[in-house]
């Protein structure tokens, strides 16, 4: 109906201006996502920042959180990348079911994950009793238990990300490498891995961030003890009861750490992902 008006250039600019409805909904969405963070920053007792961050509880929780989430992210790579490769590149009975179960922790309430971990690795669990009697290993209420809980909820993010990248790339390069005489292991190492590196990095970031923020599975499976299993999210939750100001400051620390990682990695890696 407005065919007579303007050049192709003008039409292009107009097409890029959103319809009013879209603009309004997008604005509501943006405010909804930004407002809580802004409120957190504005409402924080900034004068207490140093005092809170250097307090033993927060220091212990921060150190524990950084350590456990890094180990969880590393474990996710070690086991998640091969799992993603198997899911993307091989055919076997039950693959679709396995893929679904592997991704389940992404949507599962974390508390349920914690209960499931207790059922498997608790002292009376399927595997937990054996681990204790045979090796003297008791995972619940240990720092290792925190890593287990975090890996359980975080690894699926890496698997799904890497698997998607592998599936959108055709196996042509790998086939060529094998035809040219490379072993399957060498092909994986020198062709597949470099080509999926951006996806792996993105998966690691997602997994690490998820592990850093993990609460439900951790408190259910690993309990809460300062210096051993009390990660920053647990300290925030319990601190909220007694000192809401301190809890806000701790939340800011998590926001800052998460933001720093996101920004730091975005400029280096995410554009490559988007371009692909």
């Amino acid at each position: 109906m407005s065919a007579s008006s303007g050049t192709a250039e003008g039409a292009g600019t107009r097409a890029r201006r959103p319809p009013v409805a879209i603009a309004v909904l997008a604005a509501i969405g943006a405010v909804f996502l930004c407002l809580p963070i802004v409120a957190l920053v504005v409402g924080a007792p900034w004068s207490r920042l140093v005092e809170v961050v250097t307090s033993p509880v927060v220091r212990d929780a921060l150190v524990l959180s950084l350590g456990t989430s890094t180990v969880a992210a590393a474990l996710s790579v070690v086991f998640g990348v091969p799992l993603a490769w198997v899911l993307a590149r091989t055919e076997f009975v039950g693959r679709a079911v396995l893929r679904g179960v592997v991704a389940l922790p992404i949507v599962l309430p974390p508390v349920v994950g914690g209960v499931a971990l207790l059922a498997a690795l608790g002292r009376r669990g399927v595997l937990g009793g054996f681990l204790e009697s045979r090796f003297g290993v008791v995972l619940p209420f240990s720092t290792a238990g925190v890593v287990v809980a975090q890996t359980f909820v975080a690894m699926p993010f890496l698997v799904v990300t890497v698997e998607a990248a592998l599936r959108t790339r055709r196996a042509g390069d790998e086939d060529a490498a094998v035809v040219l005489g490379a072993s399957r292991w060498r092909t994986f190492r020198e062709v597949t891995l470099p080509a999926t590196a951006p996806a792996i990095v993105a998966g690691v970031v997602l997994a690490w961030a998820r592990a850093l923020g993990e609460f439900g599975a951790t408190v259910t499976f690993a309990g809460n003890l300062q210096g051993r299993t009390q990660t920053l999210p647990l300290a925030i939750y319990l601190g909220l009861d007694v000192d809401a100001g301190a809890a806000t400051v701790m939340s800011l620390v998590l926001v800052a750490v998460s933001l720093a990682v996101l920004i730091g990695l975005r400029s280096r890696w995410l554009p490559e992902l988007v371009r692909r």
Partner: protein
Amino acid sequence: MSDGPGARSCALLGLVVAVVVAAVAASCAGGGRGDAASTSASNGAPAVTGTVVVFAASSLTDVFTQIADEVERAHPGVDVQVNAGSSSALAQQIVDGAPAAVFASADRAAMDRIGSRGVAPSAFATNELAIAVPTGNPAGVTDLAAFGDPARRTGLCASTAPCGRYARQSLERAGITPVPVTEEPDVRSLLAKVASGDLDAGIVYVTDVRAASTTVDAVPVDGDDQVRAQYLIAPTRPPDGGRPTAAAIVFVDWVLGPGRPTLRAAGFGVP
């Protein structure tokens, strides 16, 4: 090639939005209750109606569910919803504007925190501590000394929760420095970890052990080390001030009167 995943993620986003909208709509539909609390005179006898949201200490979970049934039977127009949790966490939520109509706390400190939101708190029950152990007491726990033994896997409530404060008082009296493997946010999550067998022992209330008697056994706490927990209840003002609802007062009066045998049967001391 990039169309496929894009379309898929759009569909997924649509699904997520739909679910969120449905959830919000459902919770809004359930939330239209504030104005429902009212007293209407029919045939001379005032019939109280409305929903009472009761914020109750975690250790009151079972007994308040029973008392809620009693109140609802006696007052068909009243609907009681019990929200149980750590007393201090609930107090903080009330201070932050949670729509509680009644607050029942496991100690005075938590009740004091809600300040003028609570109207004339009354002591309505007492409780004592017990050592909960998994059925059969596999670790052979005999007294509080187990909580100072690093070889035992023991748990306490966090000191933010009343059960954690009481337990530490008791241990201090017994001269024991506790070495717990976990400090749980509230008494019921501590009890659950004893029941599952993952903890050898935890200090909870006598009434908790009774409520969970199929999965845990009780080891008594020595009389000298015993601590008496005092429970307080108060109808609360709405977040924007004003008076407690009639339905809230009905519930509180029931707890202080006709509900006493139920409290006693659950193992609480009743003044």
